[in-house]
């Protein structure tokens, strides 16, 4: 089955991202295809490469990033961050930083910034869209 995931909450504050990660991993292990993981609302904070949790805690960002290199058939899991939600929360990639005259960027390279159309397309293209959040 082709599945897409939407994550609406930030890391550590809320378990949504952890649950979504476990679900995604389990789905891939069962042979399902993950078409796209879309980060929205505070979910965009899951893409910060500046995340530094204590050593004995899970590293949610890296866990997602590592997933990005191994889907069921070896293809990438698409980790997409909503551009409008990201920018208003201070999450920028190199291109958005230079476009907005800001001297730094914090999106992990395993993630990419794109528009809300990617969420709708995921809903159209996938057999299931599973939403994690409040």
């Amino acid at each position: 089955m082709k599945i897409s995931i939407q994550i609406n909450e930030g890391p550590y504050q809320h378990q949504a991202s952890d649950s979504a990660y476990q679900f995604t991993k389990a789905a891939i292990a069962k042979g399902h295809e993950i078409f796209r993981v879309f980060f929205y609302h505070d979910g965009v904070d899951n893409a910060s490469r500046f995340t530094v949790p204590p050593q004995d805690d899970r590293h949610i960002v890296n866990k997602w990033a590592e997933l990005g290199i191994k889907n069921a058939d070896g293809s990438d899991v698409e980790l997409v961050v909503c551009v409008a939600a990201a920018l208003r929360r201070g999450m920028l990639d190199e291109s958005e930083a230079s476009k907005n005259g800001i001297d730094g960027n914090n999106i992990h390279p395993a993630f990419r910034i794109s528009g809300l159309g990617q969420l709708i397309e995921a809903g159209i293209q996938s057999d299931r869209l599973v939403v994690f959040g409040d």
Partner: protein
Amino acid sequence: MSTKKFIYLNRKAPYGTVYALESLEVVLIAAAFEQDVSLAFIDDGVYQIIKGQNTDGIGMKNFSKTYHALGDYDVNKIYVSAESLEERGLSVDDLMPLTYEDEDDDWAEKTSIKIISNVQLTKIMSEQDVCLSF
């Protein structure tokens, strides 16, 4: 691109959290994909389309006028939970008049709002392909 039935569930008050605003952004973007779109307002979500909203005292952008644009985007199936209205001492008269122009009826202006019971909403939800909950 195929057509699917999308429903957006709006469950939270318009201010206090960003869910309502960012839900509306998804709905407006999604309109470009020409899918079959329904909106439902339940729980505190009914406050999103209440008349006479004024945010002057809280420093937030009043985005309630944007809901009037939904009709122009061919989003004209707007369901409001009767129970949620009643629990809050509200009636249909407290809601903004959201309308659309019916091209099959000489562009007559008609209301987009249908007040329905939660049982009816359950049935409508079960007929959808994609349910996005905000």
